[in-house]
C-alpha cells in the first residue's frame, strides 16, 4: 500500500510540475499576473508530493518491504538502519528519485527566498525549473520507478547493499553531490529567464550569484567527500582515479567555478553577459551529461549503474530538449544582451576572462578524455582507453597557469591597471613563493624535486598574493578592527576559497611525491619500518559485525620507541553478497596519515600480507576542498543579497 502511495504521489508531483512548466511561463509571456502568481503555490505542491514519495520509499526500506523490487535488490534485513535508509540512493532508481526530490527542494527554496524578485522573473525561473522537473519525473515514472513490486511471490530477504557502499560515505556523499549538480539548475533557470525576458542587468547577476555559489559549494563538498571516501574505503590509498563518473562531477565544478567569477564581473561591471549566460547553460548541461554518462551504460566505470539503452535513450532526448533548446534560445536571443562598459587589455576583467578560459579548457580536457573512447568507438575505430597519464599530462600545466594568473588578477584593478602598480604588488609574493618553492624540497625531502618546487611555488604564490591583497585593504583604514568588520562576507569567502585552492594543491603535490608504501608478509611479532615509524604485527583474530565476519589485525605503531597508535585493519567477508572487503585502518593527522590494509592470509602460521602506507599531507587536499566550499557558502551571507532590490531595478 505504502509503495503505491509513493508512486501515486510521484504522479501527482509530475502533474504539478507540468502545470508549473506551462502556466507561469505563459503568464509571463502574456503579462498575466494572476497566472504568474501560480508559480509559488505550484512549487510548494510539487515539493510536498515529492517529499511524500521520498518518505514512502524510505519507509519501504525501513520496514524491509522486499516485495518492492528496488528494496529487495538493495537492502537486507540485517543491514544496519542508517544504511537501510541511505540505500534509498544506493541504486539507479532511488538515486534518481533523490535527484528529482532535491530539484523540487531547490524549486521550493527559490520560491521562498526570492521575495524581492520581480514577479515575471520569478515566474520564468520557476517555470523553467518546472520543465526540468517534468522531464526527470517522467523519466522516473516511465523507465525507472523505484516502487515496482515482485508480486505475487517475493523474496524472503533482500540481496543486500553492495558492501563498498555500506559506509558513512554513502550517507553524505551522494546527497551533497546532487545538491550541487541539481543546484546548477537554478543558475540555468535564471539564465533562461534572462534570455526569455531580454533583461540581464546587475540586479539579475545579483539574484543569480548566491544560488550559483551555494550550488558550487555543495558540488565541491560532494566531490571532496567522494575522494575521501574512495581513499579510505577502497583499501589502497588512492584518492582520484579519473574515472568517467568522477570526471562527470569535476566538469560542472570547473565550469561552475568559471561561472561564479564571470557572474561577479557581470554584476560589478556589466560586461561578459553573453559569456555568463553560456557558462550557466554549460554548468547545468554538464551535470545532465554526467547523469547521462553514468546511467546510460555508454561508458564503463567502477560507479556504473545497471546499463540500459532505453534509459540512455530517454535521457538523451531530455538532453536534446533542455540543452539543445537552451542553446538555440541563446543563439537567437544573446545579441539583445549588451555590455554596459568597456575595459582595457590589462584589467581585472581581462585577467578574469583569461582565468575563465583556463577553467573551461580544463573542463574540455576532461570532457575529451572521458568521451574520446566513445567517439572513437562510434566512428568504428575500435575500443580504446585513455588512462590517468593523459589527464595528468594536461592538467598539471593548465592548473599551474591558472594558479599563476589567479595571483595576478588579485593584484589588478577593474577597467585599467598599470604594469608598475602590479609589479609593486606582485614582486614580494613572487620572491617569497620561489624561495619557499626552492627551499621546501631540501628541508622536507632529500633534495631538489621539480614537481615539489612547482607545486609549492604556485601554492605559496596563491596564498601570498591573496594575503598581499588582503593587506592592501588596510592601507587607508583608520583602525584594523573597523576595517575587518567592514569587509564583506563575500570578500572573506573569496580569500578563504583561494587559500583553499593552494591548500589542495599542496596536498596533491606532497602526497603524490612523498608517499611511501610497502607490502609486507607479517607474522606475529614481525616489525617493519616506514618513514621512521615502526609497525609491529600483534596477530589477527576473527570478529563479527552486523552482517559480516572479519579477520582483524592488530598493529602497534611506535615512533622512536614512543607509542603512537594501535591500528586494527580488517578483511571483511559479507555474508549475503559473498564478497570480500578490505577495511583500512587509518591514523589520520594534519601532516601525515598512516594507512594500513590487510591483504591475504599467507600460510597456516597466522601470517598476513599487510600493506602499509605513509601519506604525507593527504588531509590537505580535502581540507582545501572544504575551505573552497566554506568560502562559497560564506559569500551567500553578504548583506547586499538581502537588500531590497526594487531600487536596483529602477536604476538598471
Amino acid at each position, binding site marked *: 500500500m505504502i509503495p503505491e502511495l509513493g508512486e501515486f504521489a510521484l504522479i501527482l508531483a509530475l502533474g504539478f510540475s507540468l502545470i508549473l512548466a506551462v502556466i507561469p511561463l505563459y503568464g509571463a509571456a502574456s503579462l498575466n499576473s494572476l497566472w504568474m502568481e501560480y508559480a509559488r503555490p505550484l512549487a510548494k505542491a510539487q515539493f510536498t508530493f515529492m517529499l511524500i514519495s521520498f518518505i514512502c520509499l524510505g519507509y519501504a526500506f525501513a520496514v524491509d518491504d522486499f516485495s518492492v523490487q528496488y528494496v529487495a535488490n538493495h537492502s537486507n534485513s540485517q543491514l544496519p538502519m542508517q544504511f537501510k535508509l541511505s540505500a534509498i540512493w544506493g541504486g539507479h532508481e532511488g538515486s534518481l528519485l533523490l535527484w528529482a526530490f532535491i530539484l523540487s527542494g531547490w524549486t521550493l527554496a527559490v520560491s521562498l527566498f526570492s521575495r524581492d524578485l520581480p514577479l515575471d522573473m520569478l515566474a520564468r525561473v520557476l517555470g523553467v525549473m518546472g520543465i526540468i522537473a517534468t522531464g526527470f519525473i517522467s523519466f522516473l515514472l516511465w523507465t525507472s520507478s523505484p516502487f515496482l513490486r515482485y508480486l505475487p511471490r517475493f523474496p524472503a530477504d533482500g540481496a543486500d547493499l553492495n558492501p563498498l557502499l555500506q559506509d558513512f560515505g554513502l550517507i553524505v556523499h551522494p546527497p551533497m553531490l546532487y545538491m550541487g549538480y541539481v543546484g546548477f539548475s537554478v543558475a540555468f533557470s535564471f539564465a533562461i529567464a534572462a534570455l526569455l525576458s531580454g533583461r540581464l542587468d546587475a540586479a539579475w547577476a545579483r539574484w543569480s550569484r548566491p544560488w550559483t555559489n551555494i550550488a558550487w559549494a555543495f558540488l565541491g563538498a560532494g566531490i571532496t567527500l567522494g575522494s575521501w571516501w574512495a581513499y579510505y574505503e577502497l583499501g589502497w590509498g588512492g584518492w582520484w582515479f579519473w574515472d568517467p563518473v568522477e570526471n562527470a562531477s569535476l566538469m560542472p565544478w570547473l565550469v561552475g567555478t568559471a561561472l561564479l567569477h564571470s557572474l561577479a564581473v557581470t554584476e560589478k561591471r556589466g560586461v561578459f553577459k553573453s559569456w555568463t549566460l553560456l557558462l550557466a547553460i554549460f554548468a547545468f548541461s554538464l551535470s545532465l551529461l554526467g547523469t547521462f554518462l553514468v546511467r546510460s551504460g555508454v561508458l564503463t566505470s567502477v560507479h556504473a549503474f545497471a546499463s540500459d539503452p532505453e534509459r540512455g535513450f530517454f535521457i538523451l532526448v531530455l538532453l536534446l530538449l533542455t540543452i539543445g533548446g537552451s542553446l538555440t534560445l541563446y543563439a537567437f536571443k544573446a545579441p539583445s544582451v549588451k555590455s554596459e562598459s568597456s575595459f582595457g587589455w590589462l584589467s581585472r576583467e581581462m585577467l578574469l576572462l583569461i582565468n575563465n578560459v583556463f577553467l573551461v579548457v580544463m573542463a574540455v580536457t576532461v570532457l575529451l578524455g572521458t568521451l574520446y573512447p566513445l567517439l572513437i568507438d562510434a566512428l568504428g575505430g575500435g*575500443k580504446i582507453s585513455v*588512462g590517468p597519464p593523459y589527464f595528468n599530462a594536461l592538467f598539471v600545466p593548465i592548473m599551474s597557469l591558472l594558479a599563476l594568473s589567479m595571483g595576478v588578477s588579485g593584484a589588478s584593478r577593474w577597467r585599467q591597471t598599470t604594469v608598475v602598480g602590479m609589479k609593486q604588488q606582485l614582486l614580494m609574493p613572487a620572491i617569497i613563493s620561489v624561495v619557499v618553492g626552492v627551499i621546501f624540497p631540501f628541508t622536507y625531502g632529500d633534495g631538489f624535486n621539480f614537481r615539489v618546487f612547482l607545486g609549492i611555488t604556485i601554492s605559496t604564490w596563491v596564498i601570498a598574493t591573496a594575503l598581499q591583497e588582503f593587506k592592501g585593504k588596510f592601507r587607508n583604514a583608520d583602525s584594523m578592527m573597523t576595517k575587518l568588520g567592514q569587509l564583506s562576507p563575500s570578500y572573506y569567502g573569496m580569500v578563504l576559497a583561494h587559500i583553499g585552492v593552494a591548500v589542495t594543491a599542496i596536498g596533491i603535490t606532497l602526497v603524490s611525491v612523498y608517499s611511501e608504501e610497502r607490502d609486507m608478509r607479517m607474522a606475529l611479532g614481525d616489525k617493519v619500518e616506514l618513514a621512521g615509524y615502526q609497525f609491529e604485527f600483534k596477530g589477527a583474530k576473527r570478529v563479527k559485525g552486523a552482517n559480516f565476519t572479519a579477520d582483524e589485525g592488530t598493529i602497534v605503531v611506535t615512533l622512536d620507541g614512543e607509542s603512537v597508535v594501535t591500528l586494527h585493519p580488517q578483511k571483511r567477508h559479507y555474508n549475503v553478497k559473498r564478497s570480500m572487503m578490505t577495511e583500512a585502518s587509518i591514523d589520520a593527522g594534519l601532516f601525515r596519515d598512516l594507512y594500513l590494509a590487510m591483504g591475504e592470509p599467507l600460510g597456516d602460521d597466522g601470517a598476513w600480507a599487510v600493506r602499509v602506507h605513509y601519506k604525507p599531507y593527504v588531509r590537505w587536499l580535502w581540507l582545501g576542498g572544504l575551505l573552497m566550499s566554506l568560502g562559497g557558502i560564506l559569500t551567500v551571507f553578504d548583506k547586499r543579497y538581502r537588500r531590497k532590490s526594487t531600487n536596483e531595478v529602477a536604476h538598471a
Partner: protein
Amino acid sequence: MPRVLLFIPLVLFITLSFFLWKGLSIDPRALPSALIDKPFPDFKVEALLQPERFLTKADIVGRPVLVNVWATWCPSCRQEHEQLLRMAQESKIKIIGLNYKDERQAATQWLQQLGNPYAFNIYDEAGMLGLDLGVYGAPETYLLDAQGVVRHRHIGVITEQTWLDIQLLIESLGVNK
C-alpha cells in the same frame, strides 16, 4: 560579434549528441564481434620480467588459458588481484598477464609486492596487441581454448561469481581442474 558565432555551441552540442546516440547502440562491455570464436591475434612482444625474451602466439596455444589484461594505473586491477592469486592457487589453468600500456618498472614492482598469479606476462607497452585484441580498458579477461581461439571475454573485475562461470566454461573446453 557576428551572430552566426552564437550558433557554435549549439552545433557542437548537436554533434556531440549524435555520438552519444551512436554510443547507446554500442555495448561497451561487448566483444567486437570480429573476435568471437576467432583466433587470438598474432604477436611478437617482449616479456615483462625478461625484456630480452620475445613472446609469440606459440607461447599461449596448446592448452586453454586465461589472458588477463592489467596495468598498474588501473584501480580495479588492484581490486581483482587477490582474486587472481586465489584462482592461480586453486585451479590448474594458466593465467597469462597482458600488461597493458604500463611502465615496466612499476609493473615489476607490483608483481613483487602483491604476488604474481601469472604464468608469464606479455609487456604490451604501446598497447598495439591490446588494440588488435579490441581491449577497451583494464581489467579484461579472455578465455582461449587449446587452439588459441577466443571463447569468452569478461570485461571488468573478476569476482568469485564470474570465476565460477568461467570455471564452467573451462570444463566445457575439457581441462581438468
